[in-house]
């Protein structure tokens, strides 16, 4: 019922959502690469092994806090372009409140608790994306 995948392959949200249908309510979040400030490509680096372990721990935390029938976290790594899917998070529970809250919990905490790093390319220049205080605040509300 917990599914964790870190992959260089494109994310298939329809297949992921269908696999989550194990109860009365499914909630999902899909993050796309934004074209902010002319960002053309994004490269995602991660810490193999530790990343999967961190995501598994997050999903286990969610299933301990809410009565979930299923929880899925899929995160893409490697190079991708603006508009492509970078992350998919989904939860299934008997009722909507648990599914919606757990889904928000997973994406908020993923941003601060999982070892991924984004590098943007704008024109000829590349830069590492800075962590945002707003993401820390969003994660902190679940502690």
């Amino acid at each position, binding site marked *: 019922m917990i599914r964790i995948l870190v992959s260089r392959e494109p994310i298939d949200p329809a297949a992921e959502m269908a696999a989550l249908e194990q109860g009365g309510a499914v909630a999902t979040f899909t993050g796309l690469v934004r074209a902010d400030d002319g960002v053309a490509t994004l490269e995602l*680096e991660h810490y193999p092994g530790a990343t999967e372990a961190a995501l598994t721990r997050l999903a286990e935390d969610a299933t301990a806090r809410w009565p979930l029938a299923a929880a899925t976290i899929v995160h893409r790594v490697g190079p991708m372009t603006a508009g492509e899917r970078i992350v998919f998070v989904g939860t299934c529970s008997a009722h909507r409140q648990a599914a919606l809250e757990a889904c928000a919990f997973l994406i908020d905490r993923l*941003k601060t*608790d999982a070892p991924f*790093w984004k590098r943007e390319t704008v024109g000829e220049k590349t830069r590492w994306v*800075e*962590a945002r205080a707003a993401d820390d605040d969003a994660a902190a509300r679940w502690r």
Partner: protein
Amino acid sequence: MKLLYFAWVRERIGLPEEDVTPPAHVATVADLIAWLTPRSPGHAVAFVDPARLRAAVDQAFVALDAPIGEAHEVAIFPPVTGG
């Protein structure tokens, strides 16, 4: 002890990983960073501001004042930016 570096820490040091044997007085992650800083000009640039660094000991996220003990693997990296 195996050290892993990620993102701009890796780029500044110019290595994804290295093996080191710190002396006994290196007790915490912060001690380890201070001990590594003079190792090369790249290390010095990567570690110039430890407040911008995060770490994991044997793949568990820790604060910089955490002990390294008998750790096999210590990772040093910038704040994470996934999602």
